[in-house]
Every structure is written in structure tokens, then in C-alpha cells.
């Protein structure tokens, strides 16, 4: 550690810094800004979808454009927004939390960002081709995605875009994994890593396991489109689905773990308590990770071509790690001294709303129930509760919590509360009616619907615009806070973990003063409460 600092490159500024800086903090911010750009783009597509669905029949866009819009909405949000910002959180905070001066493989991290931009631009260039962008859904099932059924260059661009984004995610994950394995500060054993770092470790392992399956699926799909002969057998289409979901299910946890980890940190700090049940939580994460690679075919119950009982058992067993994580989050609050700030509000919002997503997911893990609700609006409601009302709320908890560390300033609390309330109301008004729509028989991915579904669709559309207002409040908060700066101290919340033991923003090599002793997963908490002295005395 101590000798390495002299050989590391200096921080670069200016245009060269923008394109070539390998400082993990700068790379993470650039990944975030890239993801943020695609979040706004994908969000505009979502508003187009909800506006078209305000009434049955066709108003705003025709079927062809509608199919492009929902395909690009899903692809953009998953490949270009949620996965990249999940990893961006890790790229920024994992090195800080383990007390490292630098991320492992910094040039690879920089390449990861460039590949993300390349993937996003490639995918979105499809709008300028003759047949429009890839419009086979974010899953691109064969044979719908082959050259006969989806002709045109947009689909090729989509495939290349997905491959670049998947490679980006795998490289960023490799950097995080390497940092955890090789760059931990003295004293930072695996079981002294903060819960967020543990979440990112499992996230990066899952991504490295899953991304190759997606790359293979995309490569074969490309081959199928150009030459044929890959999936055009009787078992071909189901093999594509097996490959795709072997990536597609683990990636669900890539989009969940980082946020549950961040929420865990926020809850512990805002309850002024150590994280409750740390070891059980780590065990639950390991179990989650193990199970998540053997549940992929629960997306395929209705195909009638998989072993439904095995995948139903494995999927339902996810209740066990999920239940333990929930006990730990809730248990951390009990007996604490809770400050209800904006990060805490988003964290509690995450807990409750993700739970709705999780509980509805238990229904879909049971084939006799899933046969009815799969591919209906029930599923759309389910995964938006996990991804939007869950992961995005977790992201906002992290955003308000770590903003002072990244910028050295505070976000405005008042606007933060407006942001939270609008988003909370909007998310539930938008996504809760979808459960009823799906149960009553409305399928997903349709531009038009039976008039019996009109009322609930209108409610949902109104909710989408409330969400848009909430996002607007977030943007206003960022702009106001950056223009009229309220300086934040190094440790404004009374943090537990090492990122709060350095200046805000942290210097080029993260720590310019000696690290505090690391005797548990909450070293700063120990130092404040006199725990460190007690442990050291006991050890002596």
C-alpha cells in the first residue's frame, strides 16, 4: 500500500481528464452521468407509452412505433441505466469503503465507461435507420428477432449495443471484484467489509458469471440473422431463452444488491446503530447469489418445455435469503435513535415498495399462478415495483446519502422531501393498478387494449406524470445545490464506514491521512463509541 502511492499517476484535469482520467471517482461520475442521460431518454419513452395507453385505440403513435418505443424503453433502462449506475456506485465507493488508494485495474474501468457510451450510442443510432431501432423487446426472443421477422439494421445495432454494454458491465465488475480481493486496507478482513461492499462483491461475481451468457446469446443471434442455421431447429427458440435468462435472472440481482446494500448503510447510520445481524446478512447474500443462478427458467414456465418443479422450488426458496435481509434491515431500526432525513425516507420507501415487488414475485414462482399472470400487466407491475419503486428508491437513498461525500455540498432538504413525496405517490399510482389489469387479462407489450381496461390505465398514466414531476424536483434540487453551494463537512451524518474518514470530495488517492483502526465492519462507529479501544484492550 504505502509504496504503491508513489508510482500511481497524478490526477488529470481538463478535456484529457474527461476522456482519459483513470481516477475511479471520476470514472464513476462519468458512468453515472452517462446512465443518467439514458435514464432521461428512457423515461421520455415511458411517458410516450403511458400517454398512448391513456385511452384504448390509437392516438399518439401507431403499432410499429409503439413496439419500437417499449422495446427501447426496456433495453435502455436495463442495459444502459440500472446496471451501469449499480456498478457506478461500486466503482466510486468500494475502494473508499475498503480503504484503498485506487481501484484495481483502473484502465479497465475507464474502458468500461467508454464501452457503455459506445453501446448506448450504437443502440440508439437505430432510430436513424430505415426500419427504426430494434423492436423485439428487451429480450429479443428468436425467431421474432431474426432477419425475417425483424428486418433492418436497427436490430443489428441493438445486438451490438447490448454486447458492448454487457462487456462494459463485466469489465466494471472485474474492477470491483479485484479491488475487494487485492486492495483491502490492513485489518479489513472479508468479515469486516461494510454491507454495501459485500453487496457489490456479490454483484460483481454475478455479473461476471452472467455477462458471457448474454454475449453468447447475442453473438449467436447475430450469426442467425446473417447466416441462419443457429436457432432454426425445433429446440432453437427455447435454447435462446435458456441462454438469455441465464443472464437475465442473475442481472435482476445485479440491479438489486447494490441498492439493498446502500439502504443498509443509510438505515444503520440514520438509526445511529450498528447494522443488525451482519453475519446473517452476509450469509443471506451468499445464498441469494447461489440460488440466483439456478432460477432462470421461472421466466419460461409457460413454454411447457422446462422442469417446472425444480425451478419453482429454487425460486420459492429465495424467500429465505430475502426474509433474512429484511429482518436485518428492519432490526437495525429497532432500538436506534432515528433521524428521519431524506436518505432515510427513500430507504424506508425502498423497503416497503420492494417488498410489494418481492411478494408478487413469490406468486410468479408458482407455475399454476404464473401460467395466468406471466406476460400480463401483473408482471409489468411486479418488475416495476422491484426496479423502479425498489431499486430506484434505493438509488435515491444512496444519492442523498453520498452526495455530500462526492461534492462536498448538501442537497436541499425541502426539495428533497418534495422529490420523495411525488415519487412515492407517483410510483404507487402508476404501478399498483397494473396488478389488477394483468389479473383481469390485459397482456403486456400492446399499443391498444379492450375498453374494459380504460379506467385503471388512466390512473396509471396520471401516476406516470406525477413520477415525471418527482424526477423534475430531483433535477431542480441538483441544479440549485450546485449553483448555491452549502458546504458539507467530511462526515455530515456520523457515518460508520471508511469513506467518511476522508475529505469531501476525497483526494486523488482517497486518503491523505492515516486510516482509523479497522476492528469491525463499522470502524468509525467503533472509534466514536470507544469500541476500538475496548477491542484492542481485549486483544492485548
Amino acid at each position, binding site marked *: 500500500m504505502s509504496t504503491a502511492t508513489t508510482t500511481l499517476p497524478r490526477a488529470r484535469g481538463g478535456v484529457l481528464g474527461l476522456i482519459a482520467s483513470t481516477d475511479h471517482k471520476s470514472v464513476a461520475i462519468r458512468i453515472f452521468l452517462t446512465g443518467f442521460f439514458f435514464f432521461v431518454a428512457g423515461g421520455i419513452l415511458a411517458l410516450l407509452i403511458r400517454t398512448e395507453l391513456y385511452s384504448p385505440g390509437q392516438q399518439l403513435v401507431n*403499432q410499429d412505433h409503439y413496439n419500437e418505443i417499449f422495446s427501447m424503453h426496456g433495453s435502455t433502462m436495463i442495459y444502459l441505466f440500472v446496471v451501469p449506475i449499480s456498478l457506478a456506485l461500486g466503482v466510486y465507493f468500494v475502494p473508499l469503503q475498503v480503504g484503498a488508494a485506487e481501484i484495481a485495474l483502473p484502465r479497465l474501468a475507464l474502458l468500461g465507461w467508454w464501452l457503455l457510451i459506445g453501446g448506448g450510442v450504437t443502440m440508439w443510432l437505430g432510430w436513424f435507420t430505415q426500419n427504426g431501432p430494434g423492436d*423485439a423487446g428487451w429480450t429479443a*426472443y428468436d425467431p*421474432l428477432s431474426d432477419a425475417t421477422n*425483424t428486418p433492418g439494421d436497427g436490430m443489428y445495432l441493438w445486438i451490438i449495443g447490448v454486447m458492448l454494454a454487457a462487456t462494459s458491465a463485466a469489465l466494471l465488475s472485474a474492477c470491483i471484484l479485484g479491488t475487494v480481493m487485492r486492495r483491502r486496507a490492513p485489518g479489513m478482513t472479508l468479515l469486516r467489509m461494510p454491507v454495501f461492499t459485500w453487496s457489490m462483491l456479490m454483484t460483481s461475481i454475478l455479473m461476471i458469471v452472467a455477462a458471457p451468457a448474454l454475449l453468447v446469446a447475442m453473438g449467436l443471434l447475430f450469426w442467425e440473422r446473417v447466416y441462419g442455421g443457429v436457432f432454426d*431447429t*425445433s429446440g432453437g*427458440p*427455447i435454447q435462446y431463452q435458456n441462454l438469455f435468462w441465464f443472464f437475465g435472472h442473475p442481472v435482476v440481482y445485479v440491479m438489486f444488491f447494490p441498492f439493498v446494500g446502500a439502504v443498509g448503510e443509510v438505515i444503520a447510520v440514520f438509526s445511529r*446503530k*450498528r447494522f443488525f*445481524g451482519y*453475519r446473517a446478512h452476509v*450469509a443471506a447474500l451468499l445464498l441469494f447469489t447461489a440460488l440466483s443462478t439456478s432460477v432462470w427458467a421461472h421466466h419460461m414456465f*409457460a*413454454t411447457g*418445455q422446462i422442469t*417446472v418443479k425444480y425451478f*419453482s422450488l429454487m425460486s*420459492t*426458496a429465495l*424467500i*429465505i435469503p430475502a*426474509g433474512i435481509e429484511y*429482518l436485518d434491515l*428492519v432490526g437495525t*431500526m*429497532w*432500538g*436506534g*435513535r*432515528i*433521524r*428521519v432525513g431524506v436518505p432515510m425516507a427513500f430507504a*424506508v420507501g425502498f423497503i*416497503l415498495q420492494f*417488498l*410489494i415487488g418481492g*411478494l*408478487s414475485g*413469490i*406468486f410468479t414462482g*408458482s*407455475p*399454476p*399462478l404464473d*401460467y*395466468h399472470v406471466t*406476460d*400480463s400487466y401483473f408482471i409489468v407491475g411486479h418488475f416495476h415495483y422491484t426496479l423502479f419503486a425498489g431499486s430506484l428508491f434505493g438509488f435515491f437513498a444512496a444519492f442523498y446519502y453520498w452526495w455530500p461525500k462526492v461534492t462536498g455540498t448538501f442537497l436541499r432538504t425541502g426539495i428533497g422531501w418534495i422529490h420523495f413525496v411525488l415519487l412515492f405517490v407517483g410510483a404507487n399510482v402508476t404501478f399498483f393498478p397494473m396488478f389488477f389489469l394483468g389479473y*383481469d*387479462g390485459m*397482456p*403486456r*407489450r*400492446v*399499443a*391498444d387494449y*379492450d375498453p374494459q381496461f380504460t379506467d385503471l390505465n388512466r390512473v396509471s398514466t396520471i401516476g406516470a406524470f406525477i413520477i415525471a414531476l418527482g424526477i423534475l424536483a430531483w433535477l431542480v434540487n441538483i441544479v440549485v445545490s450546485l449553483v448555491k453551494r452549502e458546504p458539507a463537512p467530511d462526515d455530515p451524518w456520523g457515518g460508520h464506514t471508511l469513506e467518511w474518514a476522508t475529505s469531501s470530495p476525497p483526494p486523488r488517492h482517497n486518503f491523505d491521512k492515516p486510516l482509523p483502526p479497522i476492528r469491525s465492519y463499522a470502524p468509525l462507529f467503533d472509534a466514536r*463509541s470507544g469500541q476500538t479501544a475496548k477491542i484492542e484492550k481485549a486483544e492485548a
Partner: protein
Amino acid sequence: MVLVALVDTRKEFEDLASTYLPIAIVVFALVLLGTIVPLFVFRARRRGEPSDREEPPWLPIGYAAVLIAIVALLVTLTFNAQDKISAKVTRPGLQVNVTAAKWNWRFDYPAQHISQIGGDSTPTSLVVPTGTDVRFNLTSLDVIHSFWVPYVRFKRDAFPRRTTSFVLSFPGVGYHTAGRCAEYCGLKHDQMIFTVEVMSRNDFNAWVSQQQRAQAARAA
């Protein structure tokens, strides 16, 4: 006559959901209480220091045992329902071959020599007798479609170059507009619907004879 239980997917769905839903609601209520109560009880201004108790070792173990019991219950119920849905039916009352293609349906009744295919303005009509097992053989001519009848709470994907079979029965007598493709299949996926008409056995037999006469007349 031996009374054989029919494959009743609608009943299996509703029975199973009536166990899953209350459990889900109770769990949600518990977590809601668990998060909202401390927000009021353990406020920052409350006197005393925050608790520094570690969790007792029996807690995660005992709790995991409860979770395993819930999983065991749900999986057992699910497997029982699954066995009834996918039960081998040796002598179904009717066989219907379903062919899906962009963006329409064809229903063939091989034993009765009847074919049902709709046009642009009238969706294809699936006519079935009530109270009997109907075997469906499902395939597709182009991309993946999905045969969904919300009334019986069941769907099954239709794959090209492959036939899958399943058995459904239709309780009650009535006309349902909602039968449709549930797997995104391109441009007119939203228009790929069919209707389902469930008839009494006698009405169904009369309908079959009428269709046979009509087809004979068309052939002549």
C-alpha cells in the same frame, strides 16, 4: 359412469391464490409495522443511547426455520396444484389443434372434421363443451405466440416447429371475448385475439352438426 376430476386450471389458480395472498398481506403488514413503528418510537430526540445489542445467535437460525417452513408449505401446495394441472388425461372429451400465426388463430377439431378460422373483422371462435377435458395441441407457423384464456387462468406458449399439449376444462356456460396472444409477436400483437364460447354438451353437439353441414355445403 366413473366420475373423474377434471383438469380445472381456474380452480387451481383461485385455490392457490387464496393461500398465497393472505400470507403476502400478513407479511407486508408485519414489515409495515416493523418500519413505521420505530420511526415514531425510536426518534433521535428520545433519551438514552441507541441499543448496542448484537442479535442473539438463535434469532437468525430460528427465523430461517420459519422461512423454510413457509417455503415448504408454498412449494407443497404448488406441486399439488401442478400435478393436477399436468395430470395425464387418457381419454379427453374433445381434441382441438391450435395453430397460431401472425396475427390470427386456427382451431381444428380433427375428430369432427371442423376448422375454425376468423377474418380481419371477426376473431376466430373457440367453441368448447362445458364439463369435459379438452386436449389442446398447440403450435405456431412463424414466431412464438402464446395461447391465453384469462377465464381459465392459463396460458401456454406456441413454438414453431414444435407441438405442445395441455388439457383444460371450461366450467360454466357462456361467451368470453378475452382469448388472446400473450407473447409479443410483432406488429399486430395487440390485435391477435380470439373468442371463447362454452356450450352445454347438447348445444355443442348441435353446433358440431351445423358446422359439418355448412362445410359440406361449401365443399359442394
